[in-house]
């Protein structure tokens, strides 16, 4: 009879197989991110379209109450802006554990073509001169960025995410030229007072200081 040797590689194989069971059963049976039922709709400007969050229907942009035109989790607040027929907003994406990352996207409300403006970024508002204020390399507070080790892994391949959880690259995005007109690294970007400061001032005021 052949004697089989138990090696480290065999151990790894067993770990892979058994943890697959635990991970997939654990994550698919209990979706922790959506245990609270929601049903909210927010009108986009004066259009007939709504951003809808629902536990019973897919998240997305709806025409009226029930006609889904674009699937996805889009923001309606935090500086989402309708410029002409283009909707600038944050697209929220969950990881398996319900952690949230966002991209800034623009959606053409005629063709419903979505285009990513900046990855891992978040619109935080509109400044006094009309440019969108975008925090690049943004990690939502729900990530508990100070202690969350997943954020460290995320950051390895994204140089925009700052080492300090309070810091961010703040950019002013001009919607008419579709480009970033000014950027600065702010070590205190995530302090509430800083957001108020940026929103209440024009770009020239901030740049001039």
């Amino acid at each position, binding site marked *: 009879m052949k004697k089989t040797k138990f090696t480290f590689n065999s151990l790894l194989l067993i770990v892979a197989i058994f943890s697959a069971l635990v991970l997939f059963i*654990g994550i698919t049976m209990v979706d922790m991110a959506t245990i609270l039922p929601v049903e909210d709709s927010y009108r986009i400007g004066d259009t007939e379209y709504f951003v809808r969050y629902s536990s019973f229907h897919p998240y997305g942009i709806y025409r009226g109450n029930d006609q889904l035109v674009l699937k996805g989790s889009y923001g309606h607040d935090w500086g989402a802006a309708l410029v002409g027929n283009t909707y600038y907003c944050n697209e929220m994406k969950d*990881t398996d*554990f319900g952690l949230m990352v966002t991209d800034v996207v623009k959606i053409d409300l005629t063709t419903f073509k979505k285009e990513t403006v900046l990855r891992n970024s978040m619109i935080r508002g509109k400044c006094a001169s009309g440019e969108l204020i975008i925090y690049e390399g943004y990690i939502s507070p729900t990530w*508990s960025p100070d202690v969350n080790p997943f954020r460290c*892994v995320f950051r390895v*391949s994204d140089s925009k995410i700052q080492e300090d959880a309070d810091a961010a690259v703040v950019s002013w995005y001009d919607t008419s030229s579709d480009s970033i007109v000014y950027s600065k690294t702010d070590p205190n970007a995530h302090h509430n007072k800083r957001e108020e400061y940026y929103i209440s001032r024009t770009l020239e005021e901030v740049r001039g200081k």
Partner: protein
Amino acid sequence: MKKYSIAEKFRRGIYTFTGLAIRVIQAVSLLPLPFILACTGYWALYAHETPLSVMFRLGMASLGRVELFLLSLLYRASLSEVALFFGIVLTALAFGLITKRIAASSERASHTLSIVFAVWLGADLVIRVLPIGWNGNFGTGYEIFGFAVRLVCFGLVIFDLVFASKKRETKPAAEENASNDEA
């Protein structure tokens, strides 16, 4: 089959220091896994510093920089901690299987493997001290641990290349006997 002590197995070349370094790297690669598994059951764990998250950081800081970068890309692309988990496990497994296959093929291939491994570890150590932003990502203490693990492995491989393999060359008969005993 004749039984040897571990020290004797190293002396006879049944075990090599390169093999030991490979096992050490595989073992530390597994440190992040319990945290990911635990988060499956209680996702809010990521919001607290716990012994498991410390293990996670230690393990991540010990991974090769290139591997860590690729895992980070995988995590960002897939937005999945499960993908990250299997990325780590399968990389460790593939690393172990490939190196074992090469080492077992011939003495010359085994020697080449040691050289390649030493170069790779040396390059990794150099990358770790470059002033790249994410080099201190997991905290200074964790990065020192990761550096120390890699340095020890580098030392083991160099020792194997410089001293141990030469010593074995002088005892071909003993080696042959040992491999016969193993068979």
